[in-house]
Structures are given as structure tokens and as C-alpha cells.
């Protein structure tokens, strides 16, 4: 019997054992890191044949993902979350970038696109997309994170569930300061309104100082035109600031000497702090980290494990990520993957020799301002127990429950020291 036939017979036998399931079955496979993990397999994968015996398809016009890879965003009625546990490095593939919009994704003809800049300026101007592309182009890599990016108190939450409303791209566009010089922003203008052309007509007020610092209007994402879900054909980019203020499908900017008090900066995107006060215009995203491997619902084996994850801060660079493998009693520094960019997802890794006993693993990030990622308890102490759901960045722990040779990993975001 040839090897090919033998393989076929093995697959057929396995298929029979699996009850001839037409699509997904579950099997244990050994990963390239030597860990045994559970994986679902499709009919196509079961009938896999020797690739050295069949010519593959010819060159094509558009690449596709491997038929064996199925990373997916996780949509709800209001958002769609990035599968952080399925990603490597720090760039989010454009089709896996998280989505949050308030009136759906608009269809905008780039030939008809216009951006108006007016208000307290010397010379109100309208820019077409071609106009924007004629200005000096700048490229930078940074994350965008929704300020409502926290889901706790669920033992069956994956990294995608806990904080999948953060994604990172390489963005290309024009510095907003370049356009502001073009229209002649008046010295007494301190705020600008950014308005989108979606069905929500999203509006946010942004301090002018952000434009002189690092704000951009971007028309490209990861080497191609910005995706519709991320603001095609052009959006505002405010590196490190809460996602909502990075207005997508941008059509108008109005300069003023005061904020406009829109719905999204009064009723929404504000949160109670102590003494009956409500914090408003809370823009920077504080430092945060998440272990993406191992995490729920993965299983691990006793022995050497490389703990991996990402850390980021809206205030600047990540300078340190510490790992605890004893439920928060002791901490040790993880290695950061360079180059470490400011206001950007930064990959970390930490080698751990697991003895097979139940424990919890945690990560905490520190940024260049000296800020250290807090526990949920510390956030509650600072803001009071009624602190709403915005700008929460607590340390996340994964409980590892010993279970014979294989061990289940469960999320637990309760307070830890």
C-alpha cells in the first residue's frame, strides 16, 4: 500500500470514528511549540492529501487566508471585537480591526468626498480626497481603543471578550497641523468639532493642542485605503486618545473657543468619579496589558510555557510589563519586543516553567510617565464604586486550574494585589 493510500485510509478511519461529521470535528493536535491543544477540523482538512503530489493553484489577483485559519471578530448589536488571542506581533489585520459605530457603516464615494474646515480660521476651505493626498504624507503605527473596552466578572471570557475593542494599524495621512496652517487657525481657537458623515452624524469636540501635537487625518491603513468600517475614505486619528473621538468618515471640522457639548461628550463618554462629580473630556487611554497566551479557553501542559501578550498606553511608551505566576504575590519583568513605539501595542513574553499546580497568572504594564496598571480595586478606591464603564484598565488574571495532565484556564478579573 502506498503512503498516500495509507494516509487516506487513516483519515477515513478517523472520519468514521468521528461519526462522519460533515464539517467540524474536534481533535488534539501538537502545536509547533510542543503543546497539545484542542482544535476543530473541517471536512476539507480531513481529506488533506500530500501537497507534493498535486500542483497548486496558479498566481492570483488577491491573496486569501489559509483554509486552516479562521480568526473572526465577535459582533454584538453595538460593536465587533478583535480576536486578540489569535493574533501575533502587534499589527491587527485590517479585516479584524474592531468596530464601533453608532449608525452603521456608510457607503461614501471617494470622488464626491469633501472635508470642510471652517469657524475661527482665516480662510475656510474645502478639501477633496485628492487635495488631502497632495499634502506631505506621514505614516505612523498606533493603537485605537474604545474607552468602553472592559468586560469583567465572567469566568468564560476570552481576551477578545475582556478587551477586544483595541486594535493597531499602520496609518498614513496628513498631519492635522498641516491643514490648520493652510486654513490659518486663529490664535484664540482652543477647540474644534469633528463631524462624521455616517447616519449618526458623529460629533466630538477636541482640544486644538492635539492638532499641534500629533493628530492626523488618515486615508490609509496597513498599506491600503482605510477600510469602510474604520472610516473610508478619511478619518481623524488622535494617537492614544479614546476611539470615539477619532471620528470616522470625517466631513467637517469647525474651530471654536469652547467645546460644543455634543451627546457623545455629555450623556456618553463621561463617567462618575468621587463626590458626585462626572469626569468629562477624558481622552488619554491609560496603560494596560493582557496575557493572550495562555488564556481561556485554551489548555496547557506542564513544563515550559512562553506567556505572551500585549501592553499599551495612550500617554507614551510602555517601559515595563511585569508578570506574576503566583496569583500576584511576586512579579518579574517580561521581555518587550522592540521597537517599542509610543501609544502603540507592544508585545511581551515571559518564559515560565509550570509545575502543573493550580495558580493564577497576571500581567501589569507601566508607561514612561511612571503610571502602573492598577487593580479594579484600586480604580474603585480612586473613583468610587459607581464608576461606570469608561476608561477601565484593570489587571486581568487567568486562573489555571490543575486537572490531570491537561489544565483548563479560566478568566478571573477580581481584585488582586
Amino acid at each position, binding site marked *: 500500500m502506498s503512503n498516500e493510500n495509507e494516509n487516506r485510509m487513516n483519515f477515513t478511519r478517523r472520519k468514521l470514528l468521528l461519526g462522519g461529521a460533515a464539517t467540524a470535528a474536534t481533535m488534539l493536535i501538537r502545536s509547533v511549540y510542543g503543546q497539545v491543544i484542542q482544535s476543530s477540523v473541517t471536512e476539507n482538512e480531513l481529506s488533506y492529501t500530500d501537497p507534493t503530489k498535486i500542483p497548486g493553484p496558479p498566481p492570483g489577483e488577491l491573496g486569501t487566508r489559509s483554509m486552516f485559519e479562521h480568526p473572526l471578530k465577535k459582533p454584538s448589536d453595538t460593536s465587533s471585537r478583535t480576536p486578540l488571542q489569535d493574533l501575533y506581533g502587534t499589527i491587527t489585520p485590517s479585516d479584524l480591526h474592531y468596530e464601533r459605530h453608532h*449608525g452603521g457603516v456608510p457607503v461614501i464615494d471617494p470622488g464626491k468626498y469633501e472635508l470642510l474646515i471652517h469657524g475661527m480660521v482665516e480662510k475656510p476651505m474645502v478639501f477633496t480626497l485628492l487635495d488631502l493626498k497632495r499634502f506631505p504624507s506621514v505614516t505612523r503605527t498606533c493603537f485605537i481603543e474604545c474607552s468602553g473596552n472592559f468586560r469583567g466578572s465572567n469566568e468564560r471570557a476570552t481576551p477578545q471578550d475582556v478587551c477586544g475593542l483595541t486594535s493597531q494599524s499602520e496609518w498614513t495621512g496628513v498631519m492635522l497641523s498641516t491643514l490648520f496652517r493652510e486654513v490659518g487657525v486663529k490664535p484664540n481657537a482652543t477647540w474644534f468639532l469633528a463631524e462624521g458623515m455616517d*447616519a*449618526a*452624524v458623529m460629533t466630538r469636540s477636541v482640544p486644538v493642542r492635539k492638532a499641534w501635537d500629533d493628530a492626523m487625518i488618515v486615508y490609509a491603513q496597513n498599506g491600503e485605503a482605510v477600510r469602510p468600517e474604520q472610516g473610508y475614505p478619511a478619518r481623524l486619528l488622535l494617537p492614544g486618545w479614546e476611539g470615539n473621538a477619532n471620528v470616522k468618515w470625517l466631513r467637517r471640522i469647525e474651530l471654536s473657543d469652547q467645546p460644543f457639548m455634543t451627546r457623545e461628550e*455629555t450623556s456618553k463618554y*463621561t463617567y462618575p*468619579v468621587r463626590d*458626585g*462629580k*462626572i*469626569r*468629562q*473630556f*477624558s*481622552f*488619554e487611554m*491609560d496603560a494596560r496589558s493582557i496575557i493572550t497566551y495562555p488564556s481561556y479557553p485554551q489548555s496547557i501542559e506542564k513544563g515550559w510555557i512562553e506567556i505572551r501578550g500585549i501592553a499599551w498606553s495612550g*500617554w*507614551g511608551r510602555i517601559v515595563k510589563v511585569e508578570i506574576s505566576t503566583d496569583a500576584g504575590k511576586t512579579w518579574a519583568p517580561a521581555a518587550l519586543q522592540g521597537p517599542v513605539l509610543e501609544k502603540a501595542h507592544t508585545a511581551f513574553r515571559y518564559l515560565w516553567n509550570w509545575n502543573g499546580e493550580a495558580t493564577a497568572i497576571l500581567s501589569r504594564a507601566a*508607561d514612561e*510617565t*511612571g*503610571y*502602573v496598571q*492598577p487593580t479594579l480595586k*484600586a*480604580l474603585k*478606591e*480612586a*473613583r468610587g464604586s459607581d464608576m461606570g464603564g469608561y476608561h477601565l484598565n484593570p489587571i486581568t488574571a487567568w486562573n489555571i486550574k490543575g486537572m490531570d495532565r491537561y489544565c483548563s484556564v479560566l478568566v478571573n478579573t477580581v481584585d488582586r494585589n
Partner: protein
Amino acid sequence: MPLNAPGSLTDKEVYSLAAYILHANQLIDSAVVLNKISLPKIAMPAQEAFIADDRKGGPKVK
């Protein structure tokens, strides 16, 4: 507004709806007529509670 037909209300309908919601929350009397002059004069109760963001990075959790 409404969510399934964005931007379809007339200005008058928007003022009327705003008046209904504000009255239902005991912020205006039922006789008040809202228009471009009267609406901006209404002080929303949360206005006094708003404070600017005091986070500046650094070791203190805020």
C-alpha cells in the same frame, strides 16, 4: 433620529420631541414651547457636576 430613519424628523418635530422628554424628566413645564431661542436657555442638571479630566499620567491612579 429615529434610529431606523436617520435625519427624517423636521426641526419642529425635533423641538417637540425634546420638549416632551424634558417635561417627562420634570425639567420644564408642560406649557413651555421650545425653539431655537428657548432651547439653549435650559440648564441641564448634570452641567454642575462635570469636571475636567485631572489625569496626567504618573504614579497616582485617578
